[in-house]
């Protein structure tokens, strides 16, 4: 599964463009007031989402955090329903009840996302417990940020996953910031992988600007987990090219840092790599164009769609 042929790699680029186009569109809709709420975008971390999810089966589980549009799309979520959810429309995945931080696309294995930092990590353990109980051989992934590294939930989960040898892959997207403060304001630990090492969980640190490097790490972590050898911790060094949330001017960040990361942009980088590998310029241009037009239509229908029926507000509180 590890080595992808050129066509397979072009598919990865397509998926990355779909995410980039989606997130840029959400940003645009937010600026126009057509999307509201607390919106955290994953622009700059497409390499992580796509690299990891490309190593998964469609029935494997993913649990997202507050910044998970990319994870959902990488796992195969329908962009129409996702856009409609973020815009608070009846046609959304959760009929607008969830919103950007509480998206879900369980039919493709994106089980749920949470707005409570660290809250999703333990949920991934539970899904892994299902896998070992039913022996269906599925793997469970939790995406979380460097800021979640200091939460009690993460540490309890790491220990238990190791103790029970659960098929979980912990993916720490280290973008260097939690909200407005750098990682150095949160911990003196220099390598977040140390957090997993103390619980005897193998770790690897990869460059999130390189989707294929992320993918290789994920493929081996997933294979290990599926083989019953227990959890693994992948630290993806990444970046968010936007503020913490839409509306945050990110004045706390050095401009030079931003410039450096624009150069290491995973989408631009992979695109250049594929060009170098001989993919025709037209084919490459078409990946972006197709994504942008797909997303334009998703946005158009989301904006035009009706809001949920007010009666919806009181449904699904209980099953019966």
């Amino acid at each position, binding site marked *: 599964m590890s080595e992808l042929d050129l066509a397979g790699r072009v598919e990865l680029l397509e998926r990355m463009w779909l995410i980039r186009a989606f997130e840029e569109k959400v940003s645009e809709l937010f600026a126009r007031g057509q999307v509201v*709420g607390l919106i955290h975008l994953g622009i700059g971390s497409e390499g992580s989402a796509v690299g990891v999810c490309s190593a998964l089966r469609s029935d494997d589980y993913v649990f997202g955090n507050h910044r998970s549009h990319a994870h959902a799309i990488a796992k195969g979520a329908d962009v129409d329903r996702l856009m409609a959810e973020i815009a608070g429309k009846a046609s959304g995945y959760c009929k607008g009840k969830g919103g950007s931080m509480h998206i879900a696309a369980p039919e493709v294995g994106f089980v749920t996302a*949470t*707005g*409570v930092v660290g809250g999703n990590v333990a949920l991934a353990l539970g899904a892994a417990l299902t896998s070992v109980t039913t022996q269906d051989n599925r793997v469970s992934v939790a995406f979380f940020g460097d800021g979640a590294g200091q*939460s009690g939930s993460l540490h309890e989960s790491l220990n238990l996953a190791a103790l029970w040898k659960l098929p979980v892959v912990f993916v720490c997207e280290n973008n260097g910031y*939690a909200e407005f*403060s750098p990682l150095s304001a949160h911990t003196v630990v220099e390598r977040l992988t140390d957090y997993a090492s103390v619980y005897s969980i193998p770790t690897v640190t990869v460059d999130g600007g390189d989707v294929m490097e992320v993918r290789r790490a994920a493929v081996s972590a997933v294979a290990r987990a599926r083989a019953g050898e227990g959890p693994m911790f992948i630290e993806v060094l990444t970046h968010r090219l936007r503020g913490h949330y839409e509306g945050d001017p990110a004045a706390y960040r050095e401009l030079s840092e931003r410039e450096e990361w624009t150069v290491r942009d995973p989408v631009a980088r992979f695109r250049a790599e594929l060009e170098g590998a001989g993919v025709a310029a037209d084919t490459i241009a078409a990946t972006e164009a197709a994504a942008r037009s797909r997303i334009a239509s998703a946005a158009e229908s989301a904006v035009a769609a009706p809001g949920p029926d*007010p009666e919806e507000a009181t449904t699904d509180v209980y099953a019966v």
Partner: protein
Amino acid sequence: MAELSYRDAVSRGIAQEMRRDPNLVFLGEDVAAAGGVFKTTVGLLDEFGPIRVRDTPISEQAILGAAAGAAMTGVPVIAEIMFSDFLAVCFDLVANEIAKLRYMTDGQVSLPIVIRTANGAGSRFGAQHSQSVENWCMMIPGLKVVAPSTPEDVIGLMAASVRDPDPVVFFEHKSLMATKATIPDGEIVDELGKARTLRAGTDITIVALALMVPRAMAAADRLAEQGISAEVIDLRTLVPLDTRTILHSVERTGRLATVEENPRLCGWGAEIASLVAHEAFWNLDAPIVRITTPHIPLPAANNLEDATIPSVDKIVDTIVSEWA
């Protein structure tokens, strides 16, 4: 006199108390260098320095644990839990340690702590960033509970909370941050356990809290147009509860409505309804009315959020439709 927003009143209130007590420490996530995610704590780091104004990691249990330990050993603490929803992440500290330590030690320790937290809906943040959870705290013996509705009350009640020897959970409403008022210069110190009658009336007592206060006031204007004279009480603190002000009012008006942002079951209004039903039963001319959010987690979509949180229309319509 100066015009001040609710948001800026928070930092003024904290600064007032930090100037007064050189031991008082303030902790929270992104509260120091960044001035808070709601910009309620801008300038405190500059004035009081990094020993007394500290940024923490995203470690709510450690934040409140540190607050409790420091408070018990002589350093009073204001601790911020960014969104009140996240009190759930550190509820052991809230419910089992901070609330109970004085009692369990038979008063040998004191916990002068103010847990400040952003409460309430209106921003389309969805089910985990919008709740009104003052009831979670009201039901725990040992905690005091404060929820100001105006900039001046933010300062005065902050002072009262800091100076109180007991732990206080101080709910700041996200949707009131931008509201402004003219505030007197100098120190402002208020008292816990004192409700405020904002509008006198003769036909019905409307009791409200935080964001529901301006809505109850607007509803009272509309009710007046329909010939109903409403008295509006801003509770300001749930624990201690100013039962006298409520009962005196109901004795005169003969009717009671509560306006609560919380989901219906076990809302503070149920406690007040039970109090009034018992203490002022013979003064009541009509059944007590509770206007609340339905018993649901909060939806994110604009129209759903608007349909669920009590609005001026809903307050007026409910009171009018119940008027027999």
